[in-house]
C-alpha cells in the first residue's frame, strides 16, 4: 500500500458477465466485487472455468463478441463500462497491461521481438523508432533476456518458452502501466523456470510500484506472490481476504477442499491424493444458490435457495457461505498441516 490515494486504482462492483456459448447463454460471472489499490497485489485462484480469466478480460474490455456486462468497473474513479473501443485502446497496454498464459502463441511469429516490444512505446508514448528500439533493448535487458542488444532482431520461434515469457513481460511493462494482469503467467512453463519468472514479475511490480492481479490455479504461487487473494468458484468470489489470513483460517468449504487436495512432500508412501468429489458445474446451467452446493459436505437446503451473501469472518476476510460456523469450527490452513 504505497499509494495514499483515497480512490482505489481499480474498483469493481457487482460485476456480472453473460457469455453466448454454443450451449446457450451462460452466466460466467456474477456478483463479483473487489478493489485494487495502488501498489497492491491481488491473487485470483480457482480451477478451470470458474471465471478467473473472464474477470481479467472484462477488466481489459476484451470479452468476446456477444458478452453482456453488468455492474461497474472503475479505473481511478473513471467508469470503464460502456467506454468506446477507441478510448479503451488508449488504456490497454498503457495503463492496464496483461501477460498471457501461453508465451508460445502470445507473440506474433512474423515480427521481430524488438519490433513487438517497441510497438506500444511508439504508439502510446510517441517515441521515435530509434528511441523505442533503445528502450526496447533496455527493457529486454531488464527482464533478463541474455544478449538483448544482439537479439532484438530475432523472431519469436528462435526463443525458448521461458525467454518468450520474458519478452511478453517486457511488452506488457513497456509503457509502465498502473495495473498488470498476469493470467497464469507460468502455467505453460517448466517448473524450473516458473520460479524465475514469478520472481521477475514480483521484482518488477515492486520496483515500479505497479498494482498486480495474479491469476493462478496454484495455491502455492498465490501464497508466495500476493498480499490479498480471492478464491473463485462457479463464477463468483467465494472467499477473499489477506493471503496470510485466508491461509490460516480457511472459511469456505471449497477453499478448504482446494487446500486439502494439494500434493504434499513427505506424505507417507501410498497416501492417496485427496480430491473434491464431483465436478465443476457447467456455467450454462449454474444452480440458483451456492454453486458449490452439489460438492459440499455440509450443504443444507437453504444453500440451494439463493446465492449466499459474503459474511465477514475476520478483518477484511469475507466468505460467501451460510455455514461458516460449521466449516470454521476447526481451523483448516497452514497451521494444521
Amino acid at each position, binding site marked *: 500500500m504505497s499509494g495514499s490515494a483515497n480512490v482505489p486504482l481499480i474498483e469493481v462492483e457487482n460485476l456480472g458477465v453473460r457469455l453466448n456459448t454454443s450451449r446457450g447463454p451462460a452466466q460466467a460471472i456474477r456478483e463479483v466485487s473487489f478493489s485494487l489499490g495502488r501498489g497492491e497485489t491481488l491473487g485470483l485462484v480457482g480451477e478451470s472455468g470458474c471465471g478467473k480469466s473472464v474477470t481479467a478480460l472484462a477488466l*481489459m474490455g*476484451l470479452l468476446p*463478441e456477444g458478452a453482456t456486462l453488468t455492474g461497474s468497473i472503475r479505473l481511478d474513479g473513471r467508469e470503464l463500462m460502456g467506454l468506446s*473501443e*477507441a478510448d479503451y*485502446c*488508449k*488504456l*490497454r*497496454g*498503457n495503463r492496464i*497491461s*496483461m501477460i*498471457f498464459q*501461453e508465451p508460445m*502463441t*502470445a*507473440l*506474433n*511469429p*512474423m*515480427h521481430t521481438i524488438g519490433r513487438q516490444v517497441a*510497438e*506500444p512505446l511508439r*504508439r*502510446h508514448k510517441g517515441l521515435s523508432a530509434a528511441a523505442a528500439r533503445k528502450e526496447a533493448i533496455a527493457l529486454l535487458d531488464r527482464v533478463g533476456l541474455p544478449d538483448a542488444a544482439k537479439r532484438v532482431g530475432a*523472431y519469436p*520461434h528462435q526463443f525458448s518458452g521461458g525467454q518468450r515469457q520474458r519478452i*511478453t513481460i517486457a*511488452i*506488457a511493462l513497456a509503457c509502465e502501466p498502473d495495473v498488470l494482469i498476469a493470467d497464469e503467467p507460468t502455467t505453460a512453463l517448466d517448473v524450473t523456470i516458473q520460479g524465475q519468472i514469478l520472481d521477475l514479475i514480483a521484482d518488477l511490480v515492486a520496483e515500479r510500484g505497479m498494482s498486480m492481479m495474479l491469476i493462478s490455479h496454484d495455491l502455492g504461487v498465490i501464497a508466495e506472490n500476493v498480499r490479498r487473494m480471492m478464491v473463485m468458484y462457479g463464477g463468483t468470489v467465494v472467499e477473499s481476504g489477506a493471503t496470510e489470513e485466508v491461509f490460516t483460517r480457511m472459511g469456505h468449504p471449497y477453499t478448504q477442499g482446494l487446500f486439502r487436495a494439494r500434493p504434499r512432500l513427505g506424505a507417507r508412501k501410498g497416501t492417496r491424493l485427496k480430491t473434491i468429489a464431483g465436478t465443476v458445474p457447467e456455467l450454462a446451467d449454474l444452480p440458483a444458490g451456492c454453486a458449490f452446493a452439489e460438492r459440499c459436505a455440509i450443504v443444507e437446503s437453504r444453500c440451494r435457495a439463493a446465492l449466499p451473501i459474503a459474511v465477514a469472518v475476520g478483518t477484511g476476510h469475507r466468505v460467501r457461505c451460510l455455514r461458516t460456523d460449521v466449516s470454521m469450527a476447526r481451523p483448516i490452513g497452514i497451521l494444521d498441516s
Partner: protein
Amino acid sequence: MSAQFAAQADPPVIAERLRRPEKGFWRRALRHRSFVVGSALSLLVLLAASLSMVWTPWSAYDIDIAAKLQPPSEAHWLGTDSFGRDIVSLLLVGARSTILVGIIAVGIGLTFGVCLGLIAAARRGWIEELIMRMSDFTFAFPAVLSAIMLAAVVGPGMVTSITAIGIFQIPIFVRVTRGSANAIWAREFVLAACASGKGALRITIEHVLPNILSVLIVQATIQFALAILAEAALSYLGLGTQPPQPSWGRMLNDAQTLLFQSPLLAVYPGLAIATAVLGLNLLGDGLRDLFDPRLSRER
C-alpha cells in the same frame, strides 16, 4: 534448424519463411517436382509474352491471304492460319493477352476480395453476414454468364471480359481471406495485440494479413489459371479479346470451322492454354506444399 521447422506445423512460421526465404526453402523448392515443372511452364509462357514485345517472326496483325493455311515450313515454323498470319507470332502475342487478362482479373479479385474478407473477419456481426451473402450472390453467376450480361450492356471486348472474370474472382478471395483471417483472429497473439491497445485496423494490417499471405499467394496462382481458362472460353465465344488482337481463345474459335481441313490449327492454341493452366496449377500445388511443412515430402 530444418528438422525443427518440420516438427512445428505452424502456418505463420512458414509465412515468415516466405518473407525471409532461407537456403532450406530453395533447396526444398528445387527438389519439389511439381514446383519445378510448374515454374518452368509458367516461365515459358511469361518468356513468350515478353519476347512478343520485342520480336516476333512475322507481324501478328498482317494478313496475307496468298499464304493462307500453309503447312509448317522454314518461313512459318508452325504454318499460317486462314488469313495467312504466322501461327508462332500469333501464339507469342496471344500469350501477352492471356497474361494481361490473368494479372488484371486476379488483381481485381485479390484487391476487392481480400479487403472485403479482412473487413468481414475484423468486424463480424451483420457486416460479415452482408459481405458473405453478397459474395454468395456473385458466386451464383458463372464468369461466362456475367460476361455475357456485361457484353450485352457495354459491348464485347477485352475490358468486358477482364471485368467479368475479375468480378467472378472476388467472392473466391473473400471466402479464402475470411476463413483464414478468422483463424488468425482466434489466436492468442491477436488477443495480446488487443491487450496492448491496438485497434482492429492495425491488427488486420500488422498481424492478420502477413499471417495469411501464403494462403493468398497459393490461391492467386490457382485463380490465375482459372482466369486464363475463362478468358479463352470468352474469346472463343467471341465475347473476349476482339480481332485483330490475337488471343488463344480466338485462335481456337477461328480454327473450329477448319477443323477437318487443318486440325493442327486448333491443336496449337489448345496446347498453349493447357501449358499455361497446367504450369500454374502445378506451381500453386508446389507452393502450397512448400509453405506447409506437414506436406513437405518430395514428389
